[in-house]
């Protein structure tokens, strides 16, 4: 991912953010950062009961949640949101977590969040992740057990020697080519920039 460009413009003047964290001071700090970014509407919750009630009835443009809230119930909250089938099931989610127990790393990966950010949450890091969300081109994946953004940032096919686990994975060997190979001239023509007059 590219470095942050300080001259880029961002417009969050119509955005709403749902902020869920067990620590009221953490909520205050993140809310202040978001206010600085120009976010006008911030819904704050320090318990999951109220946050889930909100998510069942309303939506926001972004969910920022500390998954360690209530002994790690935040991971399940994100997973349930993704599996809910509701309109807000695909909303961008950023997990913000301080010290993470080793046992919870897989939970974070499998929750369906777009990005994981570690605290202390510097404003520049949060803003960079917001820009990542805006530029994210990954598709959403629904494979039953996991719903969320594709966890692969690049896809190089199934591991060597395996047939893959997905019905869509191509079987190897692929078989013979059914067209002649491209000539070098044809390859060059594809790579060479062309001036187009529209």
């Amino acid at each position, binding site marked *: 991912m590219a470095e942050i460009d300080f*001259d880029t*413009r961002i417009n969050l*003047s119509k955005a709403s953010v749902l902020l869920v964290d067990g620590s009221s001071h953490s909520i205050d700090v993140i809310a202040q950062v978001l206010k*600085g970014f120009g976010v006008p509407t911030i819904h704050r919750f320090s318990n999951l009961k109220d946050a889930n009630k909100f998510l069942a009835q309303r939506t926001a443009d972004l969910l920022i949640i500390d998954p360690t809230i209530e002994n790690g119930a935040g991971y399940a909250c994100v997973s349930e949101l993704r599996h809910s089938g509701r309109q807000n099931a695909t909303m961008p989610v950023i997990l913000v977590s*301080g010290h993470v127990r080793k046992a919870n790393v897989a939970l974070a990966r499998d929750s369906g969040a777009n990005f994981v950010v570690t605290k202390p949450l510097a404003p520049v890091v949060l803003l960079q992740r*917001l820009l990542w969300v805006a530029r994210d081109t990954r598709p959403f994946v629904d494979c039953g057990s996991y719903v969320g953004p594709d966890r692969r940032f690049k896809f190089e096919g199934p591991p060597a020697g395996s047939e893959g*686990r997905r019905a869509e994975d191509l079987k190897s060997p692929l078989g013979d080519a059914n067209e002649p190979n491209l000539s070098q001239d044809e390859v060059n023509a594809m790579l060479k920039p062309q001036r187009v007059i529209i």
Partner: protein
Amino acid sequence: MTRVRFFYPDVRLKRLMREPGGIRVADALERADVAIDSIRDDCLFAIDAKIAAIAAFKPAGSDVDSRYVLANEIFAEAGVLGLAELSDVAHNLCELLSLEGHAAVSEQAVGVHVDAMRALRSPAVSASSKLRRVVLLELHRLAAHLAGNHSR
């Protein structure tokens, strides 16, 4: 064989962020820093209260998680306020309290971390980067010594 569905949901935030107007990233970051500064004193007060709460716990198995949560909050909040050494000590305490088998947590080691955090919050130490480094070095020395004793 797992059936996988790929799709591209409409993400409103993406559209909003690209709308004309808005502010420069540099200005957004500057405003965020000013906004954090406006609640700095409240946060420092809360951090001191959390250090006191960790210190006040009586050693008991069920207390470990409460202290872990408090140390984790100090780690995050001190870090965002620029108190790097205090954040480091709190992180070390989290590591200590999240070790497998809570019964093995050394109360002496917890006490050393609490003392280090208190020292780092004292006006004299917090104002001097040299003293802050000394506190960190001393903490690491003591923690290593206690870990050595504990494993014997």
